[in-house]
Protein backbone atom coordinates (compact mmCIF):
# COMPACT_ATOMS: atom_id res chain seq x y z
CA UNK A 1 0.00 0.00 0.00
CA UNK A 2 2.79 2.40 0.87
CA UNK A 3 4.52 2.58 -2.49
CA UNK A 4 1.95 4.65 -4.42
CA UNK A 5 1.69 7.52 -1.96
CA UNK A 6 5.51 7.67 -1.86
CA UNK A 7 5.60 7.79 -5.63
CA UNK A 8 2.87 10.42 -5.73
CA UNK A 9 4.57 12.52 -3.06
CA UNK A 10 7.64 12.62 -5.30
CA UNK A 11 5.58 13.50 -8.33
CA UNK A 12 3.96 16.42 -6.51
CA UNK A 13 7.08 17.51 -4.63
CA UNK A 14 8.69 18.01 -8.02
CA UNK A 15 5.90 20.42 -8.93
CA UNK A 16 6.14 22.43 -5.72
CA UNK A 17 9.08 24.46 -7.04
CA UNK A 18 8.66 27.33 -9.54
CA UNK A 19 11.92 26.55 -11.37
CA UNK A 20 10.89 22.96 -11.93
CA UNK A 21 7.40 23.95 -13.05
CA UNK A 22 8.88 26.39 -15.50
CA UNK A 23 11.23 23.70 -16.86
CA UNK A 24 8.27 21.35 -17.36
CA UNK A 25 6.36 24.13 -19.08
CA UNK A 26 9.26 24.70 -21.47
CA UNK A 27 9.64 20.97 -22.15
CA UNK A 28 5.96 20.84 -23.08
CA UNK A 29 7.06 22.62 -26.27
CA UNK A 30 9.53 19.82 -27.05
CA UNK A 31 12.94 18.51 -25.95
CA UNK A 32 15.61 21.04 -24.94
CA UNK A 33 19.24 21.04 -23.86
CA UNK A 34 20.29 21.84 -20.30
CA UNK A 35 21.82 25.07 -21.61
CA UNK A 36 18.55 26.23 -23.18
CA UNK A 37 16.59 25.29 -20.08
CA UNK A 38 18.98 27.03 -17.70
CA UNK A 39 19.26 30.25 -19.72
CA UNK A 40 16.20 32.07 -18.26
CA UNK A 41 17.33 31.45 -14.67
CA UNK A 42 19.81 33.46 -12.68
CA UNK A 43 21.18 30.36 -11.06
CA UNK A 44 24.51 28.52 -10.87
CA UNK A 45 24.58 25.44 -13.09
CA UNK A 46 25.08 22.97 -10.19
CA UNK A 47 21.93 24.33 -8.51
CA UNK A 48 20.01 24.10 -11.76
CA UNK A 49 21.24 20.54 -12.26
CA UNK A 50 19.77 19.60 -8.87
CA UNK A 51 16.35 20.57 -10.20
CA UNK A 52 16.93 18.60 -13.38
CA UNK A 53 17.97 15.52 -11.43
CA UNK A 54 14.94 15.89 -9.16
CA UNK A 55 12.63 15.96 -12.15
CA UNK A 56 14.42 12.95 -13.57
CA UNK A 57 14.24 10.83 -10.40
CA UNK A 58 10.57 11.66 -9.87
CA UNK A 59 9.83 10.54 -13.42
CA UNK A 60 8.83 13.87 -14.93
CA UNK A 61 11.61 14.00 -17.51
CA UNK A 62 14.19 11.83 -19.23
CA UNK A 63 17.66 13.08 -20.08
CA UNK A 64 20.04 11.78 -22.70
CA UNK A 65 23.59 12.84 -23.42
CA UNK A 66 24.74 13.13 -27.02
CA UNK A 67 28.36 14.24 -27.29
CA UNK A 68 28.65 17.18 -24.89
CA UNK A 69 24.97 18.12 -24.92
CA UNK A 70 22.45 16.69 -22.47
CA UNK A 71 18.90 16.84 -23.83
CA UNK A 72 15.81 16.69 -21.63
CA UNK A 73 12.48 15.26 -22.75
CA UNK A 74 9.14 15.30 -21.00
CA UNK A 75 8.10 11.90 -19.71
CA UNK A 76 4.41 11.11 -19.69
CA UNK A 77 4.69 8.52 -16.90
CA UNK A 78 3.98 10.97 -14.09
CA UNK A 79 0.59 11.77 -15.54
CA UNK A 80 -0.06 8.07 -15.83
CA UNK A 81 1.00 7.45 -12.23
CA UNK A 82 -1.68 9.82 -10.98
CA UNK A 83 -4.33 8.53 -13.33
CA UNK A 84 -3.74 4.85 -12.78
CA UNK A 85 -3.32 5.07 -9.02
CA UNK A 86 -7.02 5.07 -8.16
CA UNK A 87 -7.84 2.34 -10.66
CA UNK A 88 -5.07 0.23 -9.12
CA UNK A 89 -6.53 0.79 -5.67
CA UNK A 90 -9.87 -0.33 -7.07
CA UNK A 91 -8.41 -3.56 -8.38
CA UNK A 92 -6.72 -4.17 -4.99
CA UNK A 93 -10.08 -3.93 -3.22
CA UNK A 94 -11.89 -5.94 -5.88
CA UNK A 95 -9.26 -8.68 -5.59
CA UNK A 96 -9.63 -8.69 -1.81
CA UNK A 97 -13.40 -8.95 -2.07
CA UNK A 98 -13.13 -11.77 -4.62
CA UNK A 99 -10.77 -13.70 -2.35
CA UNK A 100 -12.95 -13.08 0.71
CA UNK A 101 -15.97 -14.36 -1.20
CA UNK A 102 -14.07 -17.46 -2.36
CA UNK A 103 -12.71 -18.07 1.13
CA UNK A 104 -16.11 -17.75 2.79
CA UNK A 105 -18.01 -19.82 0.24
CA UNK A 106 -15.45 -22.64 0.11
CA UNK A 107 -15.05 -22.88 3.89
CA UNK A 108 -18.87 -23.00 4.08
CA UNK A 109 -18.97 -26.11 1.90
CA UNK A 110 -15.88 -27.86 3.20
CA UNK A 111 -15.11 -27.14 6.84
CA UNK A 112 -11.41 -26.23 7.28
CA UNK A 113 -9.04 -29.05 8.19
Amino acid at each position, binding site marked *: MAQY*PALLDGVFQALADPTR*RSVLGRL*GAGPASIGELAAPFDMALPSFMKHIRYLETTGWIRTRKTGRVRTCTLERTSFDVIETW*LSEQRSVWEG*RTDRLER*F*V*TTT*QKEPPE
Partner: protein
Amino acid sequence: MTTSIHPELDLTVSRIIEAPRSAVWNAWTDPASFEQWWVPAPEACRVQDMDLRPGGSFRTEISQDGVGFGPHITGCFLAVDELERIVFTDALVVGWRPAEASFVTAVITMKDHPDGTEYTATALHRDIADRDQHEQLGFHDGWGTVTRQLAELVESRA
Protein backbone atom coordinates in the same frame (compact mmCIF):
# COMPACT_ATOMS: atom_id res chain seq x y z
CA MET B 1 -22.45 8.28 10.78
CA THR B 2 -22.64 8.53 7.03
CA THR B 3 -19.69 8.57 4.74
CA SER B 4 -19.19 11.39 2.31
CA ILE B 5 -17.66 10.10 -0.91
CA HIS B 6 -15.30 12.08 -3.12
CA PRO B 7 -15.51 10.27 -6.46
CA GLU B 8 -12.02 11.34 -7.52
CA LEU B 9 -10.34 10.09 -4.33
CA ASP B 10 -12.50 7.27 -3.04
CA LEU B 11 -13.80 3.97 -4.20
CA THR B 12 -16.50 1.51 -3.26
CA VAL B 13 -16.56 -2.20 -3.99
CA SER B 14 -19.78 -4.06 -3.29
CA ARG B 15 -20.53 -7.76 -3.65
CA ILE B 16 -23.25 -10.24 -2.72
CA ILE B 17 -21.51 -13.13 -0.98
CA GLU B 18 -23.53 -16.33 -0.82
CA ALA B 19 -22.92 -17.02 2.84
CA PRO B 20 -24.44 -15.88 6.11
CA ARG B 21 -23.26 -12.64 7.61
CA SER B 22 -21.61 -14.46 10.51
CA ALA B 23 -19.39 -16.40 8.10
CA VAL B 24 -18.26 -13.21 6.36
CA TRP B 25 -17.72 -11.51 9.71
CA ASN B 26 -15.62 -14.42 10.96
CA ALA B 27 -13.51 -14.48 7.81
CA TRP B 28 -12.71 -10.82 8.45
CA THR B 29 -12.19 -10.89 12.20
CA ASP B 30 -10.37 -14.18 12.73
CA PRO B 31 -6.70 -13.37 12.03
CA ALA B 32 -5.91 -16.85 10.68
CA SER B 33 -8.82 -16.55 8.23
CA PHE B 34 -8.03 -12.95 7.33
CA GLU B 35 -4.48 -13.95 6.38
CA GLN B 36 -5.92 -16.39 3.85
CA TRP B 37 -7.52 -13.79 1.62
CA TRP B 38 -6.26 -10.27 2.34
CA VAL B 39 -3.37 -10.32 -0.19
CA PRO B 40 -3.09 -12.16 -3.52
CA ALA B 41 -0.87 -15.25 -3.74
CA PRO B 42 2.11 -15.61 -3.87
CA GLU B 43 2.19 -12.67 -1.49
CA ALA B 44 1.52 -13.60 2.10
CA CYS B 45 -0.10 -11.65 4.92
CA ARG B 46 0.61 -11.92 8.63
CA VAL B 47 -1.66 -10.29 11.21
CA GLN B 48 0.36 -8.78 14.06
CA ASP B 49 -2.50 -7.02 15.87
CA MET B 50 -6.22 -7.17 15.32
CA ASP B 51 -7.69 -5.59 18.43
CA LEU B 52 -11.30 -5.19 17.36
CA ARG B 53 -12.43 -2.15 19.30
CA PRO B 54 -12.26 1.60 18.68
CA GLY B 55 -8.62 2.65 19.10
CA GLY B 56 -7.48 -0.99 18.99
CA SER B 57 -4.30 -1.70 17.06
CA PHE B 58 -4.54 -3.07 13.52
CA ARG B 59 -1.17 -4.14 12.18
CA THR B 60 -0.45 -6.48 9.30
CA GLU B 61 2.70 -7.48 7.49
CA ILE B 62 3.19 -8.52 3.91
CA SER B 63 5.70 -10.77 2.21
CA GLN B 64 6.43 -11.12 -1.49
CA ASP B 65 7.70 -14.67 -1.06
CA GLY B 66 6.36 -15.91 2.27
CA VAL B 67 9.82 -15.62 3.85
CA GLY B 68 10.72 -11.99 4.55
CA PHE B 69 7.86 -9.91 5.99
CA GLY B 70 7.61 -6.11 6.00
CA PRO B 71 5.00 -3.67 7.30
CA HIS B 72 1.74 -3.41 5.35
CA ILE B 73 -1.01 -1.77 7.38
CA THR B 74 -0.19 0.06 10.61
CA GLY B 75 -3.31 1.67 11.97
CA CYS B 76 -6.21 1.30 14.31
CA PHE B 77 -9.89 0.51 14.28
CA LEU B 78 -12.30 3.42 14.54
CA ALA B 79 -15.56 1.51 14.78
CA VAL B 80 -16.36 -2.15 15.24
CA ASP B 81 -20.07 -3.04 15.19
CA GLU B 82 -20.50 -6.78 15.61
CA LEU B 83 -21.66 -8.43 12.34
CA GLU B 84 -22.30 -5.03 10.74
CA ARG B 85 -19.38 -2.72 10.30
CA ILE B 86 -15.62 -2.38 10.64
CA VAL B 87 -13.90 0.97 10.16
CA PHE B 88 -10.12 1.28 10.23
CA THR B 89 -7.56 3.87 9.26
CA ASP B 90 -3.82 4.26 9.02
CA ALA B 91 -4.12 7.96 9.87
CA LEU B 92 -4.11 6.92 13.53
CA VAL B 93 -2.30 4.11 15.29
CA VAL B 94 -3.08 2.28 18.51
CA GLY B 95 -4.90 4.43 21.08
CA TRP B 96 -5.75 7.04 18.41
CA ARG B 97 -2.19 8.39 18.26
CA PRO B 98 -1.67 10.29 15.00
CA ALA B 99 0.33 8.30 12.46
CA GLU B 100 3.37 9.60 10.61
CA ALA B 101 1.95 8.85 7.21
CA SER B 102 -1.64 8.32 6.33
CA PHE B 103 -3.26 6.91 3.30
CA VAL B 104 -6.70 5.45 3.81
CA THR B 105 -9.78 5.06 5.96
CA ALA B 106 -11.72 1.93 5.07
CA VAL B 107 -15.35 1.31 5.92
CA ILE B 108 -16.48 -2.31 5.65
CA THR B 109 -20.18 -3.04 5.97
CA MET B 110 -22.13 -6.31 5.96
CA LYS B 111 -25.90 -6.50 5.48
CA ASP B 112 -28.32 -9.38 5.15
CA HIS B 113 -29.38 -10.08 1.58
CA PRO B 114 -31.81 -12.69 0.18
CA ASP B 115 -28.81 -14.48 -1.40
CA GLY B 116 -26.52 -14.15 1.60
CA THR B 117 -24.57 -11.06 2.60
CA GLU B 118 -24.18 -7.72 0.92
CA TYR B 119 -20.54 -6.85 1.54
CA THR B 120 -19.32 -3.32 0.84
CA ALA B 121 -15.81 -1.94 1.19
CA THR B 122 -15.35 1.80 0.86
CA ALA B 123 -11.85 3.24 0.80
CA LEU B 124 -11.51 6.96 1.54
CA HIS B 125 -8.16 8.33 0.46
CA ARG B 126 -6.18 11.28 1.61
CA ASP B 127 -5.70 13.99 -0.96
CA ILE B 128 -2.03 13.26 -1.36
CA ALA B 129 -1.07 16.54 -2.95
CA ASP B 130 -0.53 18.89 -0.03
CA ARG B 131 -2.93 21.72 0.28
CA ASP B 132 -0.36 24.48 -0.24
CA GLN B 133 0.89 22.72 -3.32
CA HIS B 134 -2.70 22.67 -4.48
CA GLU B 135 -2.95 26.39 -3.95
CA GLN B 136 0.31 27.11 -5.74
CA LEU B 137 -0.88 25.17 -8.70
CA GLY B 138 -4.49 26.24 -8.49
CA PHE B 139 -5.75 22.67 -8.19
CA HIS B 140 -8.91 22.28 -6.17
CA ASP B 141 -11.02 19.33 -7.12
CA GLY B 142 -8.98 16.19 -6.66
CA TRP B 143 -7.12 13.84 -8.93
CA GLY B 144 -9.19 14.12 -12.07
CA THR B 145 -8.82 17.86 -12.09
CA VAL B 146 -5.18 17.70 -11.05
CA THR B 147 -4.41 15.39 -13.93
CA ARG B 148 -6.36 17.47 -16.41
CA GLN B 149 -4.75 20.68 -15.25
CA LEU B 150 -1.28 19.15 -15.33
CA ALA B 151 -1.88 17.95 -18.84
CA GLU B 152 -3.14 21.38 -19.83
CA LEU B 153 -0.23 23.13 -18.12
CA VAL B 154 2.27 21.15 -20.10
CA GLU B 155 0.38 20.64 -23.33
CA SER B 156 -0.57 24.31 -23.67
CA ARG B 157 3.10 24.94 -24.36
CA ALA B 158 3.27 22.27 -27.05
